[in-house]
């Protein structure tokens, strides 16, 4: 794999992670505890989908077909982080899931802020800033939830974090330190040690950064419902 392909895969994983994250926020917004949560969840959705669109445009300038990226792929071609694959089972689970997806993608964008291409660097700065505020929001909620349901919060961290660690190890090992910095805040609150990353299986696709197609239930949320209308 040449450097350009590797870089494009990296951008696609970031873009698709934001795509799935944005759609999950839309699908789960009514679980918010207040109108303020509704507003923030929709803000995370809006900025995530905005980042996806901008990153697809960057990939278009690198030779990819925008329409294929946006609505030409099936569930087996989506390159999102698999931490988002399983539907959150509680408000705590949702906050931790968003936090982990943002921590992984933010670790990558912080690195890309120093990219030689100014457009990529600027776009990355913008995405990082948004992600940092999304993480602050989730962490604020996690601190509050720990007071009432610490067992649930700890169980979710231990359930979701190993797959996030695998994603960073396999896809973006050079940003592991940045990712671990973000995760330490989460572990410290819960008095937990860093778990071991999940092992990769023979089905692992290094370009997509995942082993399996997006689950059908999640794909139903993410996919364009009527591609014909978008033409």
């Amino acid at each position: 794999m040449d450097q350009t392909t590797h870089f494009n895969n990296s951008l696609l994983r970031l873009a698709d992670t934001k795509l799935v994250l944005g759609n999950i926020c839309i699908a789960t917004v009514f679980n918010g505890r207040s109108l303020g949560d509704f507003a923030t969840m929709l803000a995370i959705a809006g900025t995530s989908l905005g980042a996806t669109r901008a990153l697809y445009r960057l990939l278009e300038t690198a030779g990819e077909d925008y329409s294929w990226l946006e609505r030409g792929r099936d569930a087996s071609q989506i390159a999102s982080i698999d931490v988002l694959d399983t539907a959150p089972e509680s408000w705590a689970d949702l906050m931790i899931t968003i936090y982990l997806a943002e921590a992984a993608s933010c670790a990558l964008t912080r690195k890309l802020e120093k990219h030689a291409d100014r457009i990529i660097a600027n776009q990355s700065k913008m995405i990082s800033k948004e992600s940092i505020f999304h993480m602050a929001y989730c962490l604020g909620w996690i601190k509050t939830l720990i007071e009432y349901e610490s067992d649930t919060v700890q169980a979710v961290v231990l359930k979701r974090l190993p797959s996030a660690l695998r994603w960073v190890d396999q896809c973006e090992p050079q940003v592991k330190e940045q990712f671990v910095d973000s995760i330490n805040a989460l572990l410290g609150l819960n008095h937990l040690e860093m778990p071991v990353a999940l092992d990769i299986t023979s089905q692992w696709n290094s370009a997509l950064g995942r082993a399996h197609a997006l689950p059908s239930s999640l794909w139903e949320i993410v996919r364009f419902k009527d591609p014909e209308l978008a033409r």
Partner: protein
Amino acid sequence: MKHVNKQPDSVEFGLNLQHVKCPFCDSSEKVEFMNMTAGAANEILMRCGKCRSFFSVIKDLNMLAGMRQEPTKSN
């Protein structure tokens, strides 16, 4: 699923907003954090404790007191 009524406050969100001024009365003494999102995704909703007006401020990384802001050496 339990329902937690308590909402996180600005401290739990890691925000330091003590330098924010009310755009209506110019006071910064009693501004209160209201919500992480105001009218737009990049704004925080605030309320002035003096004139009681609601207003929004643009999110700025300098407002985040409790979170790491700088990339690590390896990056």
